[in-house]
């Protein structure tokens, strides 16, 4: 067993939600990534046992989806959008600045394990292009300068939980739509802050 009891309990709880065990594979892979920052071989073995499929079947699914990382990631996963609306809104400048600041190229993680940089396809923030996600928390209406400020702030503050609304307020600009109220939920690891959220506190 390489997983903590709380994680296994959470996994079993998730499996229960579905008519067939295998459907829980996706959520379980997020539990794995939350643990190690990527889908480790140990977790693949663990998951294959939990849902009764072979290791390579788990790996096959995990490697299909771009949000399941096959290499260790840093504490903050920086995903800058490069799809059409962002592309024509100079996302390439944002990309360049973030790369310069972090000294990383695409899909690289720094030695300290703080940042992983990636340029990604559309994140659904087209009305607020160009946009970035930090651990899947969206910030819209960026400028290259604000993007660098964001990275600096992350580096200095190293917040435990990354909250979209907080980042947007500090570094964002034009939004895709009115976000209305301020929301303080967020993500505590390089996975979407969903399902892993409460479990994190237990561990």
């Amino acid at each position: 067993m390489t997983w903590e009891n709380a994680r296994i309990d959470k996994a079993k709880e998730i499996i229960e939600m579905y008519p067939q065990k295998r459907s829980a594979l996706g959520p379980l892979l997020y539990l794995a990534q939350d643990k190690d920052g990527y889908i480790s071989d140990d977790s693949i073995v663990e998951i294959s046992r939990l849902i009764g499929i072979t290791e390579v079947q788990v790996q096959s699914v995990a490697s299909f989806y771009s949000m399941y990382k096959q290499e260790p990631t840093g504490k903050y996963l920086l995903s800058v959008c490069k799809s059409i609306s962002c592309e024509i809104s100079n996302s390439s400048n944002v990309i360049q600045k973030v790369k310069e600041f972090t000294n990383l190229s695409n899909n690289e993680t720094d030695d300290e394990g703080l940042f992983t940089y990636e340029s990604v396809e559309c994140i659904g923030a087209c009305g607020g292009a160009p946009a970035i996600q930090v651990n899947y928390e969206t910030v819209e209406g960026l400028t290259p300068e604000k993007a660098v400020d964001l990275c600096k702030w992350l580096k200095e503050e190293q917040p435990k939980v990354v909250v979209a609304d907080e980042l947007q307020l500090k570094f964002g600009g034009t939004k895709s739509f009115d976000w209305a109220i301020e929301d303080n939920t967020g993500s505590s690891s390089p996975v979407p802050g969903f399902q892993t959220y409460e479990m994190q506190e237990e561990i």
Partner: protein
Amino acid sequence: MKETILLTKHMRENPEDSHLLKSYEKNGGYKGVKKVLKSGTPESVLEEIKSSNIRGRGGAGFPTGVKWGFLAEDQERYLVINADESEPGTFKDRILLERDPHQLIEGMIITCFAANISKAFIYIRGEYAKPARRVQSAVEQAYEKGYLGKNIFGSSMDLDIVVHLGAGAYICGEETALLNSLEGRRGEPRLKPPFFPAVKGLYNKPTLVNNVETISSVPWIMNNSGKDYASLGVEGSTGTRIFSLSGHINNPGNYEIEMGSSFGEFVESLGKGVRNEKSIKAYIPGGASAPWLRGDQLDVKMTIDDVANEGSMLGSGAVVMMDEDTNLLFAAKSLVSFFAHESCGQCTPCREGTTWLENILDRIASGRGRASDIDLLLDVCDNISPGLTWPPKMTTICPLGPSATASIVSLMKDFRSEVEVLLPKKVVVS
């Protein structure tokens, strides 16, 4: 031109707490479903939906009532909400999920009542973490109130809803790929036939797969009537539709409008015109898969049929405006890269062809193009989408590969000179 506010009414009027059950209910929410459960029949709901003439909002525009009618009989049937909104340019479902999740849940309950379904899923793209949290917490509130679970609203109906997160694969927006993904498999589209979801869907059981916006429209239709809904918009494109406007626009965003105005009016009145008073060189009328229209085609009406007549599609309702300064080769390259990155890899033409197209465009963009490259690009496109027509003929299982050709074909048809200047002259030996 003005918006017609149906689906976005509650969120606009109650911005501070529209996502909470309390607020939704205070403003008339869950009234429709209560009425349906008390005095309606599945047939009466289906009749209402049919008479509204609402068509699917995911992109394909299939009549929703007809789709529900196709659902095969079986003890186990499922509803799956396609919230895998990933088409570049599109962010309309995001607002519905984030700001008014109960409207969707109410729509789902009514749908499940009409189709005799007791288990439903909301498949939300993984990048929509915050919307997913909002939906999850709305589902939990609904369970607490007894609006979900066993004997909901005190009726004999049971309904469970599971919120499921995707993980970064655009192809899962294709309904059969989504079902594979929900089953814990690679998000590869299934063969149709035999895997029509209404007959062999999730776990090979009859399954309704509907878009967020479609099902979010259901409560309004039931609170009012199918006829009222059908009276909005134009024939063939009834009701309202939320368009996501982005690109070189002063006021980008989601706009709920009746279909039938022109793109030009839309941009001017709601989008507040083109940024820096530039003119539009080209625009994408319906998401990244759609062939481009030129700036001189802004008077095209925003209806499913009008856009189709221009050789493109209204698709997902994502309108991307590109001004006169846009480097269209780079725009096309971005779009082709997107499809190459998102190809599932099953079909040879898509797997190999989209990456090849990306390579050629890269080469041209970096000044290493060859005189024969335009012909090569178009021929490779032709081998993915024979005849280069729209809607596309396909050599593939799903339309992803052919979609990748749309921007190249548009570029070469209307803006060829922008590419030609980057290529060495063809040497003609006579």
